[in-house]
């Protein structure tokens, strides 16, 4: 059976099956913070950061649950661990780097209930990725999330001063842009294989 190369895992998670544009994960922060480029970039960074950490945690938990024969606790443990990880990261960042905390601070709690993080944990388990593969997967997912967010933010900033018809303004326009972007990302299909 063909092994997925690390390169493929990365390209797949970031471009081909972009978490936001193809898997619809993390749509709410996507709609919420994609209005300004600056916040979009920070949110992307925060999500990638948490993804990397929770990816490792999820890998460990899953191995443990399988060893003890309690797969039914998977979901509950993932969500508890992600929530606590975010708390810990928040505390840690606040202590270690107040500047980084100011930059990421308000975004971290938001991430707890972001399905992209939980989705990442579930998918990597479903795909049976090992430790390194999981990390690369998390990196790709985070990069793809950030890319989608940053692209939309640029377009939305530009459209702030446009004669957009009143009924399209707001969420509808963001969704239309996301749709077109999602179509554009279809061009990456088959890459990295």
């Amino acid at each position, binding site marked *: 059976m063909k092994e997925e190369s690390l390169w493929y895992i990365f390209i797949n998670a970031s471009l081909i099956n972009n978490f936001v544009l193809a898997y619809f994960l993390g749509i709410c922060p996507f709609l919420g913070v994609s209005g300004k480029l600056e916040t979009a970039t920070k949110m992307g960074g925060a999500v990638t950061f948490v993804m990397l950490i929770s990816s490792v945690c999820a890998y460990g938990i899953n191995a443990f649950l399988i060893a003890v024969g309690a797969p039914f606790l998977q979901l509950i443990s993932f969500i508890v661990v992600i929530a606590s990880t975010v708390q810990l990261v928040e505390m840690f960042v606040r202590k270690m780097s107040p500047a980084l905390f100011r930059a990421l601070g308000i975004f971290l709690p938001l991430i707890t209930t972001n399905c992209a993080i939980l989705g990442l944990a579930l998918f990597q388990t479903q795909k049976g990725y090992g430790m390194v593969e999981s990390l690369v997967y998390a990196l790709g997912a985070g990069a793809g999330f950030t890319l989608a967010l940053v*692209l939309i933010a640029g*377009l939305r900033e530009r*459209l702030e001063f*446009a004669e*957009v018809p009143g009924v399209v303004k707001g969420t509808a*326009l963001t969704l239309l842009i996301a749709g077109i972007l999602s179509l*554009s990302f279809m061009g*990456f*299909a088959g*890459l990295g294989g």
Partner: protein
Amino acid sequence: MFKQTLHISTSPHLKLGVSTDDIMRNVVWAMLPASAFAVYAFGLSVFLLLVTSVVAAILTEHLLCRWSGKESTVNDWSAAITGLLLGLTLPPAFPLWMAFVGSVIAIALGKFAFGGLGYNTFNPALVGRAVLQAAFPAAITTWHPAFLEGRFTDIASSTLALPFMEPTYDAVSGATPLSAFKFDGVAADSADLALGLVSGSAGETCALLIVLGGIYLIARNMMNWRIPVSILLTVYVLSGIMHWVDAEAYPSPVFMLFSGGLMLGAVFMATDMVASPLTAKGVVVYGVLIGLLVVVIRLWGGLPEGVMYAILLANAVSPHIDSALQNRVYGTNKKAKAV
């Protein structure tokens, strides 16, 4: 002596004198040779295809303006460009009803929803095509051969498919040079490519006539030459390097330049100023990005052709290019202050 009252206007009192509708009208002129060739090569079906897409685009623009209580903007010619370009990028025997749908989407979704002329962040014609490609992937990848006998009297059966119905394709159907290369490893002859003696989308086959239209627009200062030049140069250099590394696996740079929609895209679609960056530097970066994406998608992606996706993706990046590559305002850098 002075019978008339004098008019007051604010300076400057001189105008360069080329207005937006002039530019748009000339773009249509510049596309006519390639369009005429498309009709010549593929016959009646393409004639109907182009008429349908143009009429649908103009109609949609007019009705949307009416509906939203604005003055109709069809006489700025931009809707005609969108319609014609969309038609030129579709396969020759593409069902007319699908082309109609594509034009409506191009104008309504690609242009009007963003605020109309000047505000569309993506190339409207390509938005229309991208939606069509995702909606009807089979129809848009079925190629009709060029120079069939009787093409001026017969209409391809798929062209006249009933609305909302699946088309039936004529048995004869050709592969494009790009898919022939990608899937069968056969490279077409460069001269055939340049002259348009191959199959492909209606308006993309004759590279020479497209270049001619581009040169006309550049000469009249109605098009930014940096965009096509940077795209084509990037494609040439990158694919040249790959071809040099492995001539078996990668096609020659000349093949890359003249095959598929690259010429049409580089000359008429990437140059849509509305969705491209503003500054000279920005435009070059934009062109290089498109060239890069085209090469990557063609050589390593799943699809044989990637010009449409490359341009749409570059459209999405262009606000960032714009903000990163603004000109330095006179007298505001450190050097000026240090003096």
